[in-house]
């Protein structure tokens, strides 16, 4: 123990501080010292990016069932017009269409890189945002006391992965429920500000000081976590993903979601071993003045579409190893309300995009909007349990083997999978 700490201290001292003061960049030295300590490969090199549309997106105006006259009867003021009309939906398959604000994603759909799942959602009936988000992130609908999230449980169960502090990353100030749990994960608000703050020279100096202090004096979780922290800082410094410009002429919107996805693309492109990335996009709780082809919902959808299109363009061929999955806690009422908006509903729509997706199709059994087919007589029914969709993505994209362990209380049944990957 003592010897080890002295060796390490000597190294950090000589490699870090002294060489910096001599003007020699120590990065390759420190990296060399860590090489071999962790497996550099393993897993499949695949990434799953989860996008949570918090606030319950109106699936029926995102993916418009324009082939159904009920839709227009129930929404005299906010329906999206049929394809071919002014500001009409962009046809997908003769029955469904994209909201016109999703135009940036239409080429991706037509080329088969994007699939839509409709009437998907939770088996739980709650219309509380908080409960439904919680159920979707823990992956245990109806059960409130689950502590960890489904993405974290995946990482805890599927151990065959390159061991890197960037395996699970959330962009944002807090770790989302979906990524919380026993497996280490990082919440990064801003790549440029990750690590110790201050001017570059002082920052590195102080980082080295803390590293030295933690090196020999600590055991247990504080030791392993601090090692991960310093390694993450070092990897970020070396790869410097924050400096990377989007490739292939991709342009992200200057929105929080655009910034988040740009950072995720940079982390993936920098080959830091990201397996799970998570980003939030808000503003979907459109109770009042939702709008039709224009308005609040259109603006949010446009931000979503521009960002996802830029993300796919940015990663280019790298998208072959990346799947993006959008999700939202529930959908909204079929009928518009008295304020030109929609209230909390049940089933909604989700998007899957990425190289392996069998896109260009709308998946899921469509229950129709007929009153007798509705959930509790008013909302779009759920015909695809979100856990069926999530399991299929976990197994087929990330090589997960045990979806029943990732979703306790759920019996994985491949026959219910949609076959979209």
């Amino acid at each position, binding site marked *: 123990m003592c010897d080890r*700490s002295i060796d390490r*201290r000597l190294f950090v*001292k000589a490699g870090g*501080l*002294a060489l910096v*003061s001599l*003007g020699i960049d120590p990065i390759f030295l420190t990296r060399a010292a860590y090489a071999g300590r962790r497996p550099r490969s393993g897993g499949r090199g695949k990434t799953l990016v989860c996008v949570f549309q918090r606030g319950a997106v109106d699936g029926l105006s995102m993916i418009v069932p324009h082939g159904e006259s009920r839709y227009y009867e129930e929404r005299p003021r906010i329906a999206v017009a049929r394809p071919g009309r002014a500001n009409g939906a962009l046809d997908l398959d003769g029955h469904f269409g994209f909201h016109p604000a999703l135009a940036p994603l239409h080429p991706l759909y037509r080329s088969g890189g994007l699939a839509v799942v409709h009437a998907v959602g939770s088996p739980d009936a709650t219309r*509380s945002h*908080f*409960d439904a988000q*919680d159920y979707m992130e823990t992956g245990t609908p109806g059960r*409130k*006391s*689950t*502590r960890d999230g489904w993405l974290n449980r995946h990482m805890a169960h599927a151990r065959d992965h390159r061991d890197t*502090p960037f395996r699970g990353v959330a962009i944002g100030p*807090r*770790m989302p*429920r979906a990524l*919380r749990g026993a497996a*280490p*994960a*990082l*919440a990064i608000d801003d790549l440029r500000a990750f690590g*110790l*703050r*201050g*001017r570059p*020279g*002082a*920052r590195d*100096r*102080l980082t080295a*000081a*803390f590293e*030295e*202090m*933690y*090196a*020999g*004096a600590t055991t247990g*979780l*504080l030791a392993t*976590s*601090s090692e*991960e*922290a310093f390694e*993450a*800082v070092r990897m970020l410094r070396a790869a410097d993903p924050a400096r990377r410009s989007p490739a292939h002429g991709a342009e992200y919107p200057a929105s929080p979601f655009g910034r988040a996805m740009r950072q995720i693309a940079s982390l993936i492109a920098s080959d830091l071993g990201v397996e799970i990335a998570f980003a939030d996009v808000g*503003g979907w709780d459109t*109770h*009042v*003045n939702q*709008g039709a082809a224009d*308005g*609040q919902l259109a*603006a949010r959808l446009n931000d979503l579409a521009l960002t996802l299109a830029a993300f796919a363009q940015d990663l280019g061929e790298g998208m072959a190893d990346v799947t993006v999955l959008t999700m939202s806690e529930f959908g909204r009422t079929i009928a518009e309300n008295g*304020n*030109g908006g929609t209230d909390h509903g049940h089933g909604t729509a989700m998007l899957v995009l990425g190289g392996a997706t069998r896109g260009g199709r709308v998946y899921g059994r469509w229950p129709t909007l007929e009153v007798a087919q509705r959930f509790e007589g*008013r909302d779009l029914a759920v015909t695809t349990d979100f856990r069926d969709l999530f399991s299929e993505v976990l197994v087929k994209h990330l090589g997960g083997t045990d979806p029943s362990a990732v979703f306790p209380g759920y019996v994985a049944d491949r026959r219910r999978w949609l076959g979209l990957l």
Partner: protein
Amino acid sequence: MLDVVILGQLATVVLGAGAPGASAAVTWARAAVPAVVPAQDSVERARAVHLLNRIAYGPRPGDVELVLRTGVDRFLELQLRPEDIPDSAAAAYLARLDVLRMSARELGRVYLEQQRARRARQRDSAMAPRRAPTPPTGMRRYLGEFQQAVVARAVLSERQLYEVMVDFWTNHFNVFLGKGIDRFLLPSYIEGIIRPRALGKFEDLLIATARSPAMLFYLDNAQSVAPGAEPPQLRRLRERRRMSPMRMERRARADSMLARLERRMPRGLNENYARELLELHTLGVDGGYSQDDIIDVARILTGWGIDRRDGGVEFAFREWAHDRDAKVVLGRTFRAGRGMDEGVELLRFLARHPSTMRFVSAKLCERFVSDRPPDGCIDAGAHAWARTGGDIREVVRAILTSPEFWAPEHRGAKVKTPLEFVASAVRAVGGAPDTTLALAQVVGRLGQPLYLEPAPTGYPEHEEDWVNAGALLQRFNVALAIAAGRAPGVALPAASPIAITTDYDRLVDQVNRVILQHGASAHTVTVMRLQAAEITSASLARTLLIGLALGSAEFQRQ
């Protein structure tokens, strides 16, 4: 955010001045000096430090000496009687927080007004894209104040054990501040339900939380009605609609009102509260109950709801919603048709159940003794529970006087939560929260936004939940910022408890004594000396050393 400007100065001192070679030479020379082992602490001193770490938010400068003068065991006894401890500093700070003087009704009015204003704004700006969030408004300020009150009490209150217990029950009976009307119900829940009973009888606390509007709304019991039950207003409305001839427009209005009422009307049992009551509040997940028990608990509690009128939200027992049949919970029959009394009987029964005694006692031991507490202290707590009918003060006393609590292997064995880390760091440097609401935000950024844990488990007590790479880096930033006097929300004392000296060995010793209570490992002492040696300014060296000490592994533990 926590931009540490002083680090720029540090960088100049370290990397700019002097010949690099010389600096390295000094380093090695210093490294050769053996660490001065601090004088052997007395047994009593170590006990005092342990007590202050666990029943308080860490020692302030001079606290250990105070406890030694008082006597360690006597200090514990005094802390068990918070009502006898004067607390003027905390009271003076809290006096400026408006939220603590507002009733739930007043706060509710502010909340509802703002809701209305927001909707109106949305209506007016139909076509405008979503705007940036508005600057902090009345409600946000009040809730910010309420979060700040937690940190202020943790740092300033002399009734430290009491504040620790309030934090414990706040998490045990967690309510999420972000869910609907709990935004304005939570302050009165904490002030009126939790705080007055934090060292009282568990049974009273349990019943008070069960009938609190905040809990009834949070865990949906207000939504839970006997299957088929219907509120009398709805029945009346439907009858009137059927019987009386109405003109077209009136009929349309009545129909839409009816439809709205029907949509809002709770349907059937909601088991959420029943399940968490058994799993989290009383018996524990292994407490020996079944799904059938959960259903019958939910049936017993049908009718325990809330009544909203003119801005106020009150508990109401709704006869029409109550299940009138007999129920059986854990083999015990609850006779039919006794309305609200069934629920009170159930809660008393649960509060005295052996599984509850053990489960809650074990949770207290996780807080006070160890993440994986040994049986001895759990037994001690459970016995005291049985003996006193669940007197929390006696249960806590039994745990804190058990041999396990004092066992050397449990000292320094628990990692601090973000709240504990921030409060103890501010206390260690003799600081205080300033007049802003920023210190609570620091705790939030470290991963524990106060009252904002959505899950009914409350914030966890285990180190796995708090120690991770990102969180540690954030703690280092906060440690350095506090040391540099640049942490948002922290007012440092005019005279630092650590005197400046150019004798860096003495400086390190002082930091080790004041901040770490002589707890620094030999390795940490060596590193601190090496780091200080490269800095010429004694004042900067002091800042760096305090920052390193607050960020050290030793300080993350308690």
